[in-house]
């Protein structure tokens, strides 16, 4: 094809794609889409999937130390959900033409990231409460917004995940409420967990809009519907009241209701810490990645055995037919 002709075809494809986006039609796997759209989604969905899976580690650490059988059953169910959510998202990413093997390789090589929040440790039981309430709470705000993302399989995975996540947040809040209704030591533990998780939870929404403008492809193509700061405000506005109800203090002396904006104003976020942790210097980055690599390698025999069993069955079937 002549170069000019080729360019015209590409311009037409982009135009019909953007018209579709304009009509709020979902984009489905077999639809034509710009390379940049596909790449953006693969990066975002695989990062989201990796976050669900890596997020199982800080909580998994507490299964054997849960304070009651009830708490243990709940925590197990929550962690199983996180694994399930990882699978929904890996499936959604696979529809874009990347394999699960490639995604895991990218995680292990550091090419693909996961949410920064999971590089912080869960030091005691109150942290399990804070993770469910604040970390899952922040994730829900983001995921509710992503239910309206333009890529069909991603949107459907988000709808399923949102249905399941609200139990996660409620179980976390219940733990915090129970501790706040307990002894002075328990209240102190709960407040300490709040102090340690509040700021990392706010960082989950990413840099301020001034650093990460709304005009990018993610907005143009409706992958993202709301900006980082809009989502962060939504999270703060609903969480402040929940903290008040159980007597927890938000560790931000600048937090103040702004009548004019209709939102809380908050103090400065320590972005140096954020970038420091992203760049590998958080308390648990190495531990999380080492654990994933080790378990993946140790589980290889299970996948090999499953393949060998299938091969044996197929051979038996073939012999019985001949």
């Amino acid at each position, binding site marked *: 094809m002549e170069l000019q002709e080729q360019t015209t075809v590409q311009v037409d494809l982009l135009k019909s794609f953007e018209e579709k986006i304009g009509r709020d039609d979902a984009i489905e796997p*077999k639809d*034509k889409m710009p390379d940049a759209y596909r790449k953006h989604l693969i990066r975002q969905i695989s990062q989201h999937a990796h976050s669900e899976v890596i997020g199982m580690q800080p909580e998994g650490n507490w299964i054997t130390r849960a304070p009651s059988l009830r708490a243990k059953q709940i925590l197990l169910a929550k962690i199983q959900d996180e694994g399930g959510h990882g699978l929904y998202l890996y*499936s959604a990413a*696979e529809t874009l033409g990347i394999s699960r*093997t490639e995604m895991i390789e990218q995680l292990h090589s550091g090419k693909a990231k996961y949410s920064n929040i999971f590089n912080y440790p869960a030091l005691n039981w109150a942290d399990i409460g804070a993770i469910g309430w604040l970390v899952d709470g922040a994730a829900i705000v983001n995921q509710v917004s992503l239910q309206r993302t333009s890529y069909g399989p991603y949107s459907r995975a988000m709808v399923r995940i949102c249905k399941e996540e609200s139990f996660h947040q409620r179980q976390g809040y219940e733990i915090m409420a129970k501790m706040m209704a307990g002894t002075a030591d328990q209240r102190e533990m709960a407040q300490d967990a709040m102090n340690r998780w509040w700021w990392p939870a706010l960082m989950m929404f990413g840099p301020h809009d001034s650093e990460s403008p709304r005009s990018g492809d993610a907005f143009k193509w409706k992958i993202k519907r709301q900006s980082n700061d809009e989502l962060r405000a939504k999270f703060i506005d609903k969480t402040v009241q929940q903290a008040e109800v159980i007597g927890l203090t938000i560790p931000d002396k600048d937090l103040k209701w702004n009548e004019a904006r209709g939102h809380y104003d908050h103090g400065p976020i320590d972005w140096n810490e954020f970038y420091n942790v992203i760049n590998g210097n958080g308390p648990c980055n190495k531990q999380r990645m080492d654990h994933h690599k080790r378990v993946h*390698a140790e589980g290889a025999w299970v*996948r090999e055995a499953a393949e060998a069993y299938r091969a044996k069955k197929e051979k038996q079937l073939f012999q019985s037919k001949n």
Partner: protein
Amino acid sequence: MSADTQLEKWEVFIQSKPGANFVHAGCVHASDKKMALQNARDTYTRRGEGTSIWAVPCDAIVASNPDENDMFFDPANDKTYRMPTFYVMPEGAKAI
């Protein structure tokens, strides 16, 4: 045999209650039919979402091409007489 095989892909369809349509839920990886069903159950029905599951190997599915939609679905476009509203009913006729 590669150590990091991720097994075959299967599409999963769930029937939410007897009598309902089977609806596509997502995908799982599994080496055989039995594992496909078990993985589908663990992945897509942790809250009683289903009473029945179909798991279908992905490479057994044939899908229409959205680029050919106009031509492919064209035969249905000019047959409005397949719709009940096409017909003129006599004034006063009831329960039809």
